[in-house]
Each structure stands twice: as structure tokens, then as C-alpha cells.
């Protein structure tokens, strides 16, 4: 039942947001935000390979003109980068919990 509700919600969301397709400008903005977050993660020496792969996929989709996919990928990359930043920040103190004493 949960699956059917989730599925319906997903479709409704797609329908209600089915405005004009994403543009190059939309992609550029989303990609810049993702890159900025990934750069911050790099400053913390905690980038994920998944983030890098998603950035590459976003760029590739944009190059092929698939801006809806490209924007979605760029947003996912930004979310991944932010999650890696959150991990680094938390671990800056949390690492001590596992130390053999």
C-alpha cells in the first residue's frame, strides 16, 4: 500500500512540476552550486567518488542537451557533496568514540 501511495505521489509531483523544461542556464546554476559544494568538501579532504561521478554525468547530460536530467544530476551531486561535508564536520569530533583505549 505504501508503495502505491509513494508511486502516486511521485507521478503527481511530476505532473504538477511539469512546467517548461530545464534550460542551459538552469543547468549552469545547478552545476555551479554543486561544484562549489564539492570544492568545500575538498577543503575538508572528504570528497566522495559518487559525487565526482554524478558531476561528470550531469555535465555529459548537459552536453547532450538533456537539461532535465542534467539539472537533476547536478542537484543530486550538490546533495552528495553536502552530505560529505556533514560527515567530515561530524567526524571531526566523533572519531574519538571508536578509539581503542
Amino acid at each position, binding site marked *: 500500500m505504501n508503495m502505491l501511495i509513494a508511486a502516486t505521489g511521485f507521478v503527481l509531483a511530476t505532473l504538477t512540476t511539469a512546467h517548461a523544461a530545464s534550460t542551459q542556464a538552469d543547468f549552469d546554476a545547478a552545476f555551479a552550486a554543486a561544484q562549489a559544494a564539492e570544492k568545500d568538501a575538498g577543503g575538508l*579532504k572528504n570528497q566522495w*567518488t*559518487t559525487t*565526482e561521478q554524478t558531476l561528470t554525468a550531469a555535465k555529459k547530460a548537459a552536453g547532450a542537451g538533456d537539461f532535465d536530467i542534467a539539472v537533476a544530476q547536478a542537484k543530486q551531486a550538490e546533495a*552528495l557533496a553536502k552530505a560529505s561535508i556533514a560527515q567530515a564536520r561530524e567526524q571531526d569530533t566523533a*572519531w574519538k568514540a*571508536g*578509539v581503542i*583505549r
Partner: protein
Amino acid sequence: MRIMRLIPLMLLLLAAVRPTAADDSVNPDADFKAFRDYYTKRFPNVPLNDFVNGPYSMDADLRKQWQAIDDFPPYDFAVSRGKDMFATPFKNGKTYGDCFPDKGIGVRQNYPYFDDKTGQVITLELALNQCRQANGEEPYSYVKDEMASLTAYMAFTSRGKPFDIKIPNDPRALAAYQNGEKYFYTRRGQLNFSCASCHVQNPGNHIRTEVLAPALGILAAMPIYRSEWNGMGTISRRFVTCNSQVRGVPLQPQDEDYRDVEYFLSYMSNGLPISGPGARP
């Protein structure tokens, strides 16, 4: 790679950047005892020196398979090649032996050491490339066969000698040790693993069919011939691949964090015998 030519210069610059004070509570001796006790208590039937054999100390079947290949160890060619390379003079007539104490024979167990001139941890791999560059030669890749051959030979000349890593009474050395300890226990990558996740919390357990090695003594067998890689792997290669396996973007080989974690792990293994070069599944 061009960047490798810059590493010695970078180290001098980094010397100014490294924090000069460690956390007041850092106590390597206490850590060392606790670390050793943890493994000997968890594995009371494993003789202390056997921990350097990694997964073979944890799993009897795996040990049998290892013993079966011991007559023709797969790292033999790397040792021979390393021996030849070691003896071959640089273009300027000097040799590797001129860069190391005791002509570089039987010294592997002293690495890494803390260099008070640069304020940096010097690993064996780094020392070898510094030697090359000091003598007008291009540095080798830290993850490829030349470095593996050289370190395989040097490890071989130290077989059986106990790790003898020193932390001088210098706040920078303590900071390096503590940075290494932090690196070891910090979760990273999308999979959220620290080195400790596998090598402290799960030694002897297996992920799919691969038996996890204990962190105690884990660098003693390096470099290794790894069947999965169909070839040799240096410490640098192992650190890089472990990072990417947990979906973390690896650091540059011989990054300060990598050298510091090698320092920490080697100190934790003081007294355990060099067993390298090794063979692993």
C-alpha cells in the same frame, strides 16, 4: 607526474603549516599498550608475532592456501628486480645505499621516522624518491611496480627485524602521530567506513569472501603481491584503493595524512617483525 617533483619543496613549505602543538592528552605509550591488548585479548590463540600475517592469522583455511604457494612466492620477481635496481648507480654515479643508514640494508623497520629538520614524517617510499631527486633522477610513481620492487627488496633485507618506530619528544611529532590516529578512526566515503570499521571492529570476519586483517601488524607485510591485483601493491597503493573502496576520493599518494597514518600504524606495531614482502589473496 609533475607534482611529484614538487613534493620535497612542498614538504618544506608544509613544515610551516603543520600545527606545532598536539592535544595535551595524547599518550602514544598508553595507546600502544591498549591497542596490543585489544587484539591479544580478542584472539588469545594467535601468537603475538603472527598478527603480521594478517588474514592468515585469522583463518586456518586461508593459511593453508598461503602455505601452499610459499615455495614459489609471487613477490620473488619483485625482490630480484628491486635488488638489481638498488645496486644500479644513478646517472651521477651515486646509489640508493648512499642515501640511507647502513647502505639501506636491513633498515626498513625504522620507517617511518619523524624528521625534525622539515617537521615531516618520512616514509620509506618518500625517502626513496627524495633519494632519486637528490641525485638528479625523476621520482617514481608511488603506486606502481618500480616503487614496489625497491620497497620489496628493502623489506626483504629486514625480514624478522622488529618494528622500531620512534616518536621524539617534539610536539610536531606528537601532532603527526595524533593526526595519523585521527585519520585511522575517522569515517569517510559514502559508505561511512573508517579504517577501524574493518580492521579494529571486524578482524577475522569476512566481507563477501574476503577475510579482514587486524590493524595490529598490518603494514609489516608490505609491499604485497595481491592476487586480486595480479601484481604488487605498495603502501601508497593500498591506502588509495581502500579510500576508493569506501567511495572516498583518494588523497595524493604520500599526502601528509597518509604518511601520518602510516606513522601511527607502524608505531602501534612496534616490536612485531617485518614480514614483507607479502602475498595476499
